[in-house]
């Protein structure tokens, strides 16, 4: 064990909190830590994040089930559909330049962020518009 391993544990802790809280997988939490913090190339970061997310998602998922946050039916259907998509995606990723892949993914995240922000903003205004009491 060296400094790098210690930093990996800290990075894992941060990514794990995000993952458990938000429900995001490796692409959003672990990959940037590895590419930015540890200079991994995109493919190695993605592959390694898949290995790291399995136990992380199991612990987070079980905790969510116990907290009553999970609609198990839809979650499993989504997982099943996701399996097919993930295999196709992983095979496709091998043939698409890493830089393009990262930019497309980033653009998708930014658009999603704006739409989510807009939704939260609307919710706030609805709350304000309601008469007090």
């Amino acid at each position, binding site marked *: 064990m060296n400094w790098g*391993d*210690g930093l*990996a*544990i800290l*990075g894992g*802790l*941060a990514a*794990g*909190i*995000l993952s*458990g*809280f*938000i*429900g995001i*997988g490796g692409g*959003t939490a*672990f990959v*940037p830590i*590895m590419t930015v913090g540890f200079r991994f190339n995109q*493919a190695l970061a*993605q592959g*390694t994040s*898949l*290995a*790291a*997310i399995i*136990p*992380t*998602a199991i*612990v987070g*998922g079980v*905790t*969510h*089930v116990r*907290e009553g946050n*999970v*609609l198990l039916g839809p*979650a499993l259907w*989504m*997982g099943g559909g*996701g*399996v097919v998509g*993930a295999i196709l*995606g992983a095979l496709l990723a*091998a043939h698409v330049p*890493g830089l393009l892949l*990262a*930019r497309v993914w*980033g*653009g*998708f*995240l*930014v658009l*999603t*962020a704006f*739409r*989510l922000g807009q*939704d*939260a903003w609307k*919710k706030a205004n609805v709350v304000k518009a309601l008469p007090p009491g």
Partner: protein
Amino acid sequence: MIPLQLWWAGVSQRHANANSLIAIIPISIAALPVYYFLQSRPEVDFHFALFLIIGSVVGAYIGARILNRIPEREVTLIVAAVLLIVGLKEVIAP
């Protein structure tokens, strides 16, 4: 997966976050061998993953417990902020 559930299935933010974490389990199990076996060289660093996992399983427990203690709207804003930061980073400096 979170936006899909929120906008097309009308699921609440809290359920969407938790459901997607459950769905990630089979997805990662299926995709991992593709990265390990079907690339020109194995694109998985198991040594590094092990140390990430030591931190992340503790983090995942903490994160999952926090979710019910924060109001729905704030959760949405936090999700949006995280996606914005990571998204901008990927677009500007992939």
